[in-house]
């Protein structure tokens, strides 16, 4: 039989985590990401790993903190309301410089909202979510294959920079089924000399903590952390460009919105409209360079989002407001149709950049 398997996005994340060496998963069920927990419940006991359904999202993220302190690859997953509950833990992980993988398969909000797909946690993910000055590496897959690949990447980046990596997917990505090749290349976890693995009476105690009461020390920790973030911005930004070479109109879209946009772009190209796509794969660090480049030649940009317009702010900043940026969106669990995006492209082409 073929090497590929037919997987839901959620299953691809779970299996890729196992392939990446993750043997500890803590979670709490919530639609539309429950298959991650269900998959881990089935698989982890068979490979000597730990699956634990915590009593709450707060407990789960705290368990992640504990296992990460011991130096192991560890993950948790949830959907929007559950990620809000985990926010305290995310801030603590950042304060303790602990690597972890956190998955958010977004649903419509705010509040309990609905269970259908959304991208309205963009601000929460890219600006930190919890309190304090910090960032997470935010990865936005646009296929089930990428759900798997970015999960591995997420673990590697988390270990490399001692940060939390977040997979920011949406309900569609979690639920849709596509064939996946699972021959993923994995870099083993690096040495973690800071981990609390027992001194064996041969070294000083390692302490993992996010409390730092001396302001001078806390300030220097913050400065050092942001130096590290700068390195991440320089080295780890990822994006895809589609038909941008001659594009007069640039669409910015990630995840499911990028797939819808590609269909619309193909249709617009048949009408002779020069339009292309910049798809951020890392939402933080945001791929500023391709937008800055495109802003020199493009007449207009369109941000296609499953939210009331969040990434559009980063698009405006990256393009330094040189060209008008319009929003093409649906919210609350609805997905823009290719026709809606095509209409937005036609309107931008007609206005020629004039708002």
């Amino acid at each position, binding site marked *: *039989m073929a090497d*590929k*398997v*037919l997987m839901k996005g959620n299953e691809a994340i779970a299996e890729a985590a196992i392939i990446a060496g993750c043997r500890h998963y803590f979670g709490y069920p919530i639609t539309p990401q429950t298959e991650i927990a269900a998959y881990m419940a089935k698989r982890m006991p068979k490979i000597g790993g730990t699956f634990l359904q915590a009593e709450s999202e707060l407990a789960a993220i705290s368990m992640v903190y504990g296992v990460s302190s011991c130096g192991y690859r560890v993950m948790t997953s949830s959907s929007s309301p559950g990620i809000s509950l985990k926010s305290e833990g995310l801030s603590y992980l950042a304060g303790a410089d602990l690597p972890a993988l956190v998955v958010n398969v977004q649903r419509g909000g705010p509040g309990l909202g609905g269970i259908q797909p959304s991208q309205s946690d963009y601000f929460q993910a890219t600006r930190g979510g919890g309190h304090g000055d910090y960032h997470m590496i935010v990865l936005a897959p646009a296929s089930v294959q990428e759900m798997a690949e970015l999960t591995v990447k997420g673990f590697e980046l988390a270990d490399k920079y001692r940060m939390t990596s977040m997979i920011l997917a949406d309900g569609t990505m979690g639920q849709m089924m596509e064939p996946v090749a699972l021959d993923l290349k994995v870099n083993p976890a690096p040495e973690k000399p800071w981990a609390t693995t027992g001194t064996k009476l041969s070294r000083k105690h390692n302490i993992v903590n996010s409390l730092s009461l001396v302001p001078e020390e806390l300030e220097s920790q913050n400065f050092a952390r942001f130096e590290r973030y700068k390195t991440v911005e320089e080295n780890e930004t990822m994006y895809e460009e589609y038909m941008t070479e001659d594009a007069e109109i640039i669409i910015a879209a990630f995840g499911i919105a990028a797939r819808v946009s590609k269909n619309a772009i193909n249709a617009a190209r048949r009408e002779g409209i020069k339009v292309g796509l910049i798809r951020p794969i890392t939402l933080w660090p945001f791929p500023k360079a391709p937008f800055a480049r495109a802003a020199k030649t493009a007449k207009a940009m369109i941000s296609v989002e499953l939210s009331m317009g969040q990434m559009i702010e980063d698009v405006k900043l990256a393009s330094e407001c040189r060209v008008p940026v319009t929003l093409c969106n649906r919210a609350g669990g609805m997905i823009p149709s290719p026709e809606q995006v095509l209409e937005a492209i036609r309107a931008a082409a007609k206005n020629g950049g004039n708002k």
Partner: protein
Amino acid sequence: MPMERKRIVLFSGHYGSGKTNIAVNLAVEEKKKREKVAIADLDIVNPYFRSKDSMALFEENGIDFICSPYANSNVDIPALPQEMYAIVDKKDVFTVVDVGGDDRGALALGRLTPAILEENNYESLMVINGYRPLTRTPEDTVEVMREIEMASGIPFTGLVNNSNLGGETTAQTVLDSLAYAGEVSKLSNLPIVFTSVREDLLSELSGKIDNLFPLVLQKGAL
């Protein structure tokens, strides 16, 4: 699919095995031959994909639809419809039942099990896909099968080979799955009642596989 169907046809399987699609297609197909056909959605597990999405199709074809009054609404809770008793009460209606995924989904069927067994005019079919990650080996598939039987209290009577790779499925994909399906059949001592394939693959595969059942794919909630 030349075989005569029993009055109640139950479709169970691992989630994502294709139960809902097959159930919907069988209901439409049988409606061409019979007066009274119903389809029941007992899937209380996954509110993302359910037969309610094919509502228009059922109305168009005059197929009775039994599902939770809350499905796809604001209170999409694991509730079962009181109408579910029609499955066992209306003995003149051919009824296809879309059972929820895995053992948890099958648990909901338990309420009807005594009546189904008493009437003894049912088929319980396990839908299998050897390309799904948790049912890739015949052994794992049989394990899931036993878990479902334990939960529903109804032993399976046959298998449906629905092995596919989604949009990348070719005739070869299906042919490559025959050995797997055969092994599941051997291990479970159950016949492969039919092999379901996307309708455009039918001509390429006919003559090569017995009892092919063509599928018109239903659009999901997305």
